[in-house]
């Protein structure tokens, strides 16, 4: 009983961490750079499908099924989603900011349509099954399997976190923030805003693709309806709740929102009468939508604000907070 519960917790956390990967990708685009992507689901889908095609066993009458190692699939997902993002970025980032939003919205619709209609490649509405799962030989022992996958995802998220933290502090990350805060000043200092933005957009998209691949391999099955606009919406809610611009906030937001989502879904399932499940689920979406707007109105910085956000604007606060406890402490004793 408790073992089963443990296995369920591991499963839940693993799914939440696959979302955390996607939210980290969005944080590079929005949190660090201020690029608004309304088509997260499209980039996630590209990653998931590319990895699935590279690694799943061959199927009669369908393209792909190359049976390659999982790592190759994940790498392919990263590169494919990154290239797609670079292309979109190149096309729209020189224009007004909301053209990017509209284009990403369009790409998500088009990707959704493509995976639904290109049956010879994507399996159409039936999707792709038999995607190899990491530690698949442990599948008989559910607890060991769940824990091994959880460990893998923890490692992926932690690795990404370290890399992104490092990038944010690097000259590249500083230039990005400079461009976001004051484009003209950054340009005067010789930084090309357009190039930096396209790079950030491509990196963020690539990470989303990786997240999509991780999700696909953990579940073992993908279908077009996994990548509806609802996914984009969930990922946004996670980033906004956690605090955009803050990588730890992005991870926290993913865990928290996924927990709320799963709990409220369970509640809906338990409380709503059998015929009214779909209606109750739409009410759940209404509440999340209103909550997102409320956060934008009343706490735009999210749970964990961007590091240095408020302090940068109030220098005395930095001095006050930034002094090591030892000095103030020694004064008092």
């Amino acid at each position: 009983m408790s073992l089963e519960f443990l296995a369920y917790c591991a499963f839940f956390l693993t799914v939440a961490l696959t979302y955390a990967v996607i939210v980290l990708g969005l944080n590079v685009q929005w949190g660090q750079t201020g690029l608004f992507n309304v088509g997260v689901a499209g980039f996630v889908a590209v990653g998931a499908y590319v990895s699935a095609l590279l690694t799943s066993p061959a199927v009669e009458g369908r393209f792909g099924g190359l049976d390659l190692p999982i790592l190759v699939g994940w790498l392919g997902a990263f590169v494919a989603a990154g290239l797609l993002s670079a292309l979109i970025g190149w096309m729209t980032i020189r224009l007004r900011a909301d053209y990017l939003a509209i284009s990403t919205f369009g790409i998500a619709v088009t990707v959704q349509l493509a995976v639904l209609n290109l049956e010879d490649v994507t399996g159409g509405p039936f999707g792709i099954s038999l995607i190899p799962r990491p530690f698949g030989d442990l599948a008989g022992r559910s607890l060991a399997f769940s824990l091994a996958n959880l460990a893998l995802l923890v490692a992926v998220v932690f690795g990404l976190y370290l890399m992104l933290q490092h990038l944010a502090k690097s000259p590249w990350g500083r230039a990005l923030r400079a461009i976001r805060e004051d484009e003209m000043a950054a340009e005067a200092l010789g930084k090309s805003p357009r190039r930096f933005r396209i790079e950030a957009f491509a990196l963020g998209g690539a990470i989303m693709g990786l997240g999509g691949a991780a999700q696909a391999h953990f579940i073992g099955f993908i279908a077009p309806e996994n990548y509806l606009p609802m996914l984009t919406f969930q990922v946004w809610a996670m980033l906004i709740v956690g605090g955009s611009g803050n990588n730890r906030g992005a991870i926290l937001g993913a865990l928290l929102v996924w927990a709320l989502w799963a709990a409220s879904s369970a509640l809906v399932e338990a409380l709503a009468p059998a015929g009214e499940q779909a209606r109750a689920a739409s009410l759940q979406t209404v509440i999340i939508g209103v909550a997102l707007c409320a956060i934008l109105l009343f706490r735009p910085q999210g749970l964990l604000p961007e590091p240095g956000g408020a302090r940068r604007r109030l220098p005395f606060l930095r001095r006050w907070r930034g002094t090591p406890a030892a000095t103030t402490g020694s004064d008092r004793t």
Partner: protein
Amino acid sequence: MSGQILLEGLLAGAMIGLGAVGLTLTYSILRFANFAHGELLSWGAYLSLSLSLAIGAVSGASLAPLDPFSVSAALILAGLLAMALTAVLALAVDHLLFARLRGRGATAIIVVMASFGASMALRSLLEFLYTSKPAYYSRELQIAMPLPGGIRATPDQLLLIGLAFVAVIAVHLLLTRTDLGRAMRAVSENPALAGVVGIDTAKIVRAVWIIGGALACTAGTMSGLLVQIRPYMGFDLLLPLFAAVILGGIGSVPGAMLGGLIVGLCEALAVQTIGAEWRAAVAFAVITVVLVLRPTGLFGRAA
């Protein structure tokens, strides 16, 4: 291009154009891409439905269609009332959400994001109230009449093309011939300067939502009459609406209408040549071509 494709394209285009006119006005005067505009179409369609049923129930007899159309007198009255109610809905969303963000000096992209959240909430609320099962204004079957040139069209289709034409002319005259229209264009060009010469910006913002909401309701009700009423109908039209706005040039009312017609014709052509399952990608293809070749659109000014 055969005449039938032309007619199909014209119909879809008239619908897209009507929705796009409202979208282009909010885009140019409030300066953000409103992702919740599609929901105004859906809400308009459902409001028309509920009101026409209510009017029919109260008056008893007015549900019979006006020959040769499938439209009843109740639906016409309901449509007019629904236009007002959709405008009220647009004003309410602005008051609760967008106006507060504007007042706080939020960047355009935050407002866009809020509109994205609002669109999700509004759409799911419709799904909750009406379920996702498609609804219809009338079960009346319409027989297509043969027209010259081998085209076949139902009376409803011809009525709606005429209606769209009248609506666009009316908005065009409003914008070019009245003081309100001139003030709206002034705010769109330069809000600070418009304020200096004594234009009441808050009044202009209200006017934009009222016109946009009423036109969205018209487009939504048309779409419901021609196809069916679903909670996702407006969301599915959002990409074609944006395509029409960008193609026409942001802020241009004739541009939005022409853009809508072009997108509608491209869709009809694609349905004939490539297949109906790719229809939704046409709008994105149009956006891509415009952004690469002429980002300001047909009638737009450089930003």
